[in-house]
């Protein structure tokens, strides 16, 4: 029982970060039908920014807003330089473009910075814990879960209660008709990339605090988690993406602690196998998006 509760908290902490990443992936997929394999690059770029700042003596208090701002800016620049040129192209073209961005960003850091891993100091409190009964809870997980809940509440408010959110949802459902209503496609798409960058920035803060390092390929792991979680939840569903993030985080933690030691190192593989199983039974993910007008 205690172990399960412990897993639950650890899994929610991990899942929170995945949920933020997946939500960013889902927002972009919603408006552009782009499965963004360059999403992790936001963490690569902001990771280098954090590394330069932190190794030149800037405190984490300043690094946090820096990471978020760099992530948003990177997202907007990538949209401007790459994705705005392939708007309305086939899903396959969009997919290839996002792969292209992924490799180009990686190559830039390889060529102009360094191929090696760069370390930076992690904030001291990251590994501090407190106890509730026999549970040992990390302050880090506590903060991650709280910040994620606040972020999700704010995003829900944005999407449900503001005109921008409404235009985003309308454009995601039917871009042409949204334009007929006077919704400006540039504003919606840039807004979606800014939101996606903000979410990746918040996730990135926690990701980098825990990692304490970056390298040219640092974006692959967060990208995989975000894309997988969005797929698990059912692409196109924002709620599904968040759910998918939490499910993925919990699955990883529970499997790692429950699998026999001999195969615990294969957790990643087991997770992939489970995801494959999920898609056999529910090809659309956990939450299936239905778009049928009843007559």
């Amino acid at each position, binding site marked *: 029982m205690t172990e399960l509760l412990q897993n639950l908290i650890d899994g929610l902490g991990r899942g929170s970060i995945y949920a933020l990443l997946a939500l960013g992936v889902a927002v972009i997929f919603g408006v552009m039908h782009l499965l963004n394999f360059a999403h992790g690059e936001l963490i690569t770029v902001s990771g280098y920014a954090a590394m330069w700042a932190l190794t030149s003596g800037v405190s984490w208090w300043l690094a946090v807003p820096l990471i978020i701002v760099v992530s948003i800016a990177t997202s907007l620049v990538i949209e401007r330089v790459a994705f705005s040129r392939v708007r309305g192209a086939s899903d396959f073209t969009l997919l290839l473009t996002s792969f292209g961005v992924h490799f180009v960003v990686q190559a830039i850091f390889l060529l102009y910075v360094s191929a090696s891993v760069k370390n930076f100091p992690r904030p001291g409190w990251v590994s501090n814990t407190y106890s509730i009964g026999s549970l040992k809870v990390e302050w880090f997980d506590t903060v991650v879960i709280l910040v994620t809940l606040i972020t999700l509440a704010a995003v829900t408010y944005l999407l449900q209660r503001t*005109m921008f959110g*409404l*235009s985003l*949802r*309308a454009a995601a*459902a*039917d871009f*042409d*008709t*949204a*334009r*007929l*209503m*006077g*919704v*400006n*496609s540039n504003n919606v798409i840039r807004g979606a990339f800014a939101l996606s960058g903000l979410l990746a920035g918040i996730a990135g803060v926690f990701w980098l605090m825990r990692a304490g390092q970056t390298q040219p390929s640092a974006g692959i792991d967060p990208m995989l988690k975000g894309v997988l979680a969005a797929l698990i939840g059912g692409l196109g569903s924002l709620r599904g993406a968040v759910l998918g993030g939490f499910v993925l985080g919990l699955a990883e933690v529970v499997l790692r602690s429950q699998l026999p030691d001999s195969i615990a190192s294969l957790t990643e593989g087991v997770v992939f196998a489970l995801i494959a199983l999920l898609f056999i039974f529910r090809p659309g993910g956990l939450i299936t998006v*239905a*778009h*049928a*007008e*009843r*007559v």
Partner: protein
Amino acid sequence: MAKTCWSPPSVADSQSERPTPGAGETLLRVSGLTTKYGAISALRDADLHVNTGEVVGLIGPNGAGKTTLLGTIAGLLAPDAGTVVFKGDDITGAPSEQLLRSGLSLVPEHRRIFVDLTVEENLKIGGFTLPKADRPALLDEMAEQFPVLREKWTTPAGYLSGGEAQQLAIGRALMSKPDLLMMDEPSLGLAPLLVDVVFDLIDSLRASGRTILVVEQNATRMLAAADRAYVLRSGEVVAEGSGDELLARSDLFDTFVGG
């Protein structure tokens, strides 16, 4: 299903700066409009005009180019030749978001309501270009004018019946306070009783002074409801006249069903 009780909304309060031409003056003029899909001309050298206060019908068989014509006027498709002049401005090729602001609104074919958004949200997005302060009053107006919608105000629009969805699509288009309302086959796929509701709605919109351009396959009903009409066939305007004149021309009806 309840019938729509339409109380005329004020027409003189369009959101655009430019004055609307007075009753009987030309509001929209389409000249020599040609639109192609690849090498195929779906619309060839079309001429058409709509005067302020008129209900103008656009009829023709399936594939005649009616949707292409409305889509080109509304800025969803780019024309290959010709001009569209609205309220004296050349708006040829302008994007639809700009056209909406200048007072042109389209109820698209198949309604295209946002099924995941509630009825209220659909209407709100229809008033996207309005100043924030104007929206509540217009929403109230729509709730009053479409009682069916008021009953389902917070229901996702995907749960509406076809007739309700059509009223929502029209209400959504009216939210932008258009000077010219264009509708593409509003009676498509509706049961006969609901077709009556749509034509009643067109009648009351006309009575309230609205200017409307309607595409219909239901030719006889449309000609009876319209002040004037155009007949489109294979991408070309082949006839024009008052509703009664065209109704009398049996030759026009040999080639397509819908009468």
